[in-house]
């Protein structure tokens, strides 16, 4: 079973200012009796309010909205990293969150070591990675460079490796923050095909993007976030109505 169910999700962030991060200032406040700083308390930002979302197998949801509208926050809540202040988030299926390709990567380790490091974070056992290592290293196209530390790679080579590992998992739910475009032109084509394949096998895709053409191309549903408030989940064919609204 593959499904995402979000009910009345509200997420509030405590934002800790410089003074709020100091234990000394907290103690001083208690002993002196008065408030020393104006910003001693954490401010709360409501990043998402009352989000409702039901997705089932075959749904490809595009998230649109301005910077700071809550797209990434919603993806993080779906990945299980952020816990709701109100409401609930329920996900059935294996989640692949491709929010940050550098997840779990160590620049001082070799390319090969990084495949293992990243794979372990993704929930693969060492043996499972052993089974995929040939495929991953072949896809990355890095060949002998896999024995070199990642910091000696160019940015493009690093991205190739990260991409190859991140997309080597089996996933039912793919969470993506902007379409991943890495490498040179030739690699981009194969990367694109690989990502397409991953998404095709997954039941659900949630893609946050500012690129409307991309959303049109990949998604069959769309949701617009404005200051943490979500629109209805709309059919992609009515994207223009949603934008006009």
């Amino acid at each position, binding site marked *: 079973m593959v499904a995402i169910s979000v009910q009345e999700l509200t997420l509030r962030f405590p934002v800790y200012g410089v003074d709020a991060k100091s234990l000394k200032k907290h103690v001083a406040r208690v002993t002196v009796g008065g408030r020393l700083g104006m910003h001693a308390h954490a401010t709360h930002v409501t990043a998402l309010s009352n989000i409702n979302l039901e997705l089932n197998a075959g749904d490809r949801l595009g998230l649109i909205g301005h910077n700071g509208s809550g797209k990434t926050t919603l993806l993080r809540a779906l990945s299980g990293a952020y816990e709701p202040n109100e409401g609930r988030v329920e996900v059935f299926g294996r*989640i692949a969150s491709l929010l*940050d390709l550098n997840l779990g990567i160590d620049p001082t380790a070799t390319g090969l070591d990084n495949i293992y490091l990243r794979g372990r974070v993704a929930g693969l056992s060492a043996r499972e990675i052993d089974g995929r290592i040939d495929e991953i290293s072949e896809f990355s196209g890095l060949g002998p460079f896999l024995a070199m530390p990642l910091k000696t790679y160019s940015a493009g080579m690093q991205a190739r490796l990260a991409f190859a590992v991140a997309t080597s998992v089996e996933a039912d739910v793919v969470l993506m923050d902007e379409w991943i475009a890495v490498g040179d032109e030739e690699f981009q084509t194969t990367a694109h095909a690989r990502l397409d394949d991953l998404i095709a096998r997954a039941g659900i895709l949630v893609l946050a993007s500012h690129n409307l053409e991309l959303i049109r191309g990949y998604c069959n549903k769309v949701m617009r976030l404005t200051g943490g408030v979500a629109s209805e989940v709309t059919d992609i064919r009515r994207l223009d109505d949603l934008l006009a609204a």
Partner: protein
Amino acid sequence: MTSTHHMLRTAPKGALSEALLALDDLKRSAQRVGLAWSRAWHDVVARYRGSILGPFWITLSMGVMVLGIGLLYAQLFRLPVGEYMPFVALGIVLWGLISTTMTESCDTYVQAAGMLRQTALPLFIFTLRTIFRNLINLAHHAVIIVAVVAIYGYWKVMDLPVALLGLALVVANIGWMGLVVSIAAARFRDVPQIVGSFMQFAVFMTPVFWKPDAIPERHAILILNPFYYLLQAVRAPLLGETTVNGTYLFLVIMALVGWTGALALFSITRRRIVHYL
């Protein structure tokens, strides 16, 4: 990225359910203990990549320190080297375990920020990682212990099973201390400095370099000092000495009380830790 098959995240529903969720975090961490171990192992390998001696560099510098302090302080304290050297060697190695675990716990969550912000990984994995990393280092430093025990003939009088029991109790206690420190350090950025100065103060207040029988028995500096019990629980049996009555009982109670407190703190802050970072 993670492969959870069913994930449910709900709003807080009272203290009891938060406590159960904290315990569930521990349970899920135990299920993924392999990840904690592989990360810890990688940390050790990465830190010493390119050096011939690897983690034995620290062992070597510790060994030199043991030798220097052992010879000099034996003179200062007018003690036979054969008696003082093993004492201080064990003290320095064990203190290293306790103190480094505390200072490195300050980075436990800060270091893991990237992973915590986009996966459903349980938090306690990273506390395990810090503890495992320090145990791996201890395994290297065990060379020093083996050397002094062999050279000064303490293998004839030592009580290894009791020492290992003592070590287990030490790990149980630095576990909860590490959890508390890691949460505090994620929340307040001046905690690493405080922990650093505190551990430096504690090393002089605890019989690491000086022998406990140099001061009156049951002096407050000993009986009120938890680090004294932690050290003695492993050191005394290896030196063929008996510990102060109740050392092990004290450590068991400290572990139980400590874990209760640490888990209470963990269940209160668990949801917010990711936002601290």
